[in-house]
C-alpha cells in the first residue's frame, strides 16, 4: 500500500474501501490458518513423544525456570492488551494514543525476547543444548536420575523446547518488524477512522503469536509438577 492509494481511498483492484478491508482481514485469517498447521506439526510430534516418554518430558520440564516462563506469560498477555488498545485507538482516530500503544507493545515484546535470550543462555551454561552441548550435570543430573528419565529422551524434550520456543521467538521478531513499520506509518498519519485495517490485521497476527505461547507455556513449563 503506498501513500497515493491511502489518500484516494483504496487500491485499484477493489471496488471500495470496505471490500479492501474485508479482503485484508480474511487474508490474515487465512494466513493464521497456515500458521496453525505450521505449529500443528510440532504440537503433534510433541504429543506423540510426550505420551511415549512421559517421565523424561516431566523431568525436562522441571529443568526449566518456571518463574521466568510465568513472568514472560504475563508480559506477553500485557502486550496483547496494549495491541488491542492500539487497534481501538486506530478505530477512533486517536493518533497519539495509537503510536503510544504500538510502542508499548514493542517494548513488552522486546522484554519477552530478552528474558527468552537469558533463559537460552542459562541452558547453555547448564549444557542443556541438544546436539551442540548436551551433558547435564550436578543438580540437573540428580533430577534426571531421581525421576528415572533417560538422558537421551530428556534431550528429545529439549529439542522440542528449543524448536518450539525458537519458532515462536522467530514469529515474535517478525511481529516486532511489522510493528515498527506500523509505528512509522502511524506517525506519518496514514491511519484514520476510515482506514485502519493494517493496524487491525497486524493485531490479529500479534494475538496469534501470543496464543501460541499460551499453549507452549503449560506444555513445556507446567507438566513437571504432578509429583
Amino acid at each position, binding site marked *: 500500500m503506498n501513500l497515493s492509494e491511502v489518500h484516494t481511498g483504496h487500491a485499484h483492484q477493489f471496488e471500495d474501501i470496505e471490500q479492501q478491508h474485508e479482503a485484508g482481514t480474511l487474508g490474515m485469517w487465512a494466513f493464521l490458518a497456515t500458521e496453525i498447521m505450521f505449529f500443528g506439526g510440532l504440537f503433534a510430534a510433541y504429543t506423540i513423544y510426550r505420551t511415549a516418554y512421559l517421565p523424561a518430558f516431566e523431568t525436562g520440564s522441571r529443568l526449566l525456570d518456571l518463574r521466568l516462563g510465568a513472568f514472560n506469560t504475563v508480559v506477553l498477555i500485557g502486550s496483547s492488551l496494549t495491541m488491542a488498545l492500539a487497534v481501538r485507538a486506530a478505530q477512533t482516530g486517536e493518533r497519539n494514543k495509537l503510536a503510544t500503544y504500538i510502542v508499548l507493545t514493542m517494548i513488552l515484546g522486546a522484554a519477552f525476547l530478552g528474558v527468552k535470550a537469558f533463559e537460552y543462555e542459562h541452558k547453555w551454561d547448564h549444557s542443556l543444548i541438544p546436539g551442540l552441548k548436551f551433558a547435564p550435570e550436578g543438580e540437573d543430573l540428580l533430577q534426571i536420575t531421581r525421576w528415572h528419565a533417560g538422558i537421551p529422551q530428556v534431550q528429545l524434550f529439549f*529439542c522440542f523446547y528449543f524448536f518450539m520456543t525458537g519458532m515462536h521467538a522467530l514469529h515474535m521478531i517478525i511481529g516486532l518488524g511489522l510493528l515498527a513499520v506500523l509505528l512509522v506509518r502511524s506517525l506519518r498519519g496514514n491511519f484514520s477512522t476510515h482506514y485502519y485495517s493494517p493496524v487491525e490485521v497486524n493485531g490479529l497476527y500479534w494475538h496469534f503469536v501470543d496464543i501460541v505461547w499460551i499453549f507452549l507455556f503449560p506444555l513445556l513449563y507446567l507438566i513437571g509438577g504432578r509429583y
Partner: protein
Amino acid sequence: MHYPRIESHVHYLNVNYGIRSWLFTTDHKRIGLLYLASVTFMFLVGGLAAVLMRLQLVEPQGTLLEPDTFNKMFSTHGIVMIFFFLIPAIPAVLGNFLVPMMIGARDLAFPRINLLSWYVYLVGAILTLIAILNGGVDTGWTFYTPYSSTYSNSNVLLVGIAAFITGFSSILTGLNFIVTIHKMRAPGLTWSRLPLFIWAHYATSLIMLLGTPVLAITLVLLALERILHAGIFDPKLGGDPLLFQHLFWFYSHPAVYIMILPAMGVVSELITCFSRKRIFGYKVVAFSSLAIAVLGFLVWGHHMFVTGQSVYAGLIFSALSFLVAIPSAIKVFNWTATLYKGSISHDAPMLYALGFIGLFTMGGLTGLFLASLATDVHLNGTYFIVAHFHYIMVGGTIMAYLGGIHFWWPKISGRLYPDKWARFAALVIFIGFNLTFFPQFLLGYLGMPRRYAFYPQEFQVLNVLSSAGASVLGVGYAIPLIYLIWSLRYGPPAGPNPWGAKGLEWQTPSPPPTENFEETPIVTEEAYAYASEDHELV
C-alpha cells in the same frame, strides 16, 4: 503468411515495455506469464534428468551413469518436477491468469503478494539449481530420514531449504485465490454460477494453505537435525524416523491433489466448450472437488503400508483411500455424461481433455491396486507405482495443463496457433506417454523395483519400449513449444472469443486490457449456458 502486430487496442502486453515493467509488475496476467517461463524452464531441467535415466535403463547393465549419479538423477527429476513444475504449473500459470478474469475482477486481492510469490519461487528454484550443479542430492524427492538426516553426503540441506522456500510461494498463491474468490466476484456471480475451474482452484488453495505449512515445519525439523546432529527423528534419542514419513505424506499426499484438482477444473471448461453442453451435474462436480480436498488429508498412511505402521491404521487408511475414488469417479462419469449428445468438435484443447480422461482413469484405477493392503505389499516400491503416479501426474496434470494452454493461448497472446500441428502434437504426446509408462505397469507387476540403475536381463524389452516412448514423448513436448512461440509473431489475430466459449474471460478483448474489463461485468446466467440458444429454438 505474416500478420500485422496487434496494435488495435491497449492491452496488458503493450501497455508498457522493458524488463522493469515485467520484473516489477503486479498485473496477475503478467505474473502468470513470468510463472509460465519459469515452470517451462524447470520442466526442461527435470526432463533432462529423465532423459538421462531412460538412456541408462536401455541396457540392463547401463554404463552411462554411475549408480550414485543415477540416484541423483531420479532425485533431481522428482524434486524439480514436483515442487517446481507440477505443483505451480496450473494454479500459478493458468490460475493466476484466469481466476480474476473468470470472476470479473480487475486483479487478485493482493497483487504485490502475488508478485512476491513468484520471487519466492525463483529463489527456491535458483537454490535447487545451485544444489544440482554443486553435486546434487540423492535422497529421492521424499527426503526420508534417517538417510537424509544422518547418512547422505549430498546437498540435502540446500535442497530442503529450497523446497521450504518454494512452499511459501504456493501458500501465498493459495491465500490470494481464496480471498479473491470470496470477496471479489462480479455482481450476480453467485457461488452456484462459478466456473468449475474456480471451484477446483478454491479446493486446491485450501490444500495449499493447510498442507504446505506441515511440509515446511517438517523440512525445518529435518534441517535442524542435520545441522545439530540431534533432533526429533533421531533414533538415538528415542525419536522415530517414521514420524518424518507421517508428516511428509500429510502434505505430500494432498500435494497430489494440488496437482490434479486444477487439472480437473481445466477439463471441465474444455469438455463443456467443445461439446457445446452444460456440464452434467454442476453441483456434484463442484462439491467433488471439495470432497477430494478434504479426503486427501485423511489418506497419507497408504504410503506407509509396508513400513511397520500398525495394521489397524493400515486398514483405516486403505478404506479411506478407496473413498477418494468416489468423487474422482463422479467427475469422470459427469464429463462423459456431458459429452453425451453434445455437438463435439475435435480442436486441439479437446483432444488433450479427452486424453486426460482416459489417462486419469487408468491412473485412478491402478491407484485402487495400491490402496488395497494385500496387493500393495507386492507392488510397493516397484515400477507399478512409478507408472501409476505418472499416469495421474503426467497423463493427468500435464495433459490438462497443455489443453488449458492451448485453450487460453488466444486469450493470453491474442494469436491463434496452427491447429493441425496442435492436434498432431496432442496425438504424439498421447502415444508417447502410453508407450513410456504402460510397460512400467508390467515391469512393476513382474517385480522390477524402482530407483535402481541396473536390472535383470529379462526386463530389457519392456525397458527399451519405455525409453523409446520417452523419446516420442519428448518430441511431442517440443512441438507445441515451437509453434506456440512461432504464433506469438506469426499467428493470425484471435479475436475475443475464437472458440465461441462461455465465461467472462471471453467477453473481453484478446489480449485483455490491464484491468481485464472495460467495466465490471454483471452476471445474469449460470456457467456453461451453452444450450440456451437451442432452448430458444425449441
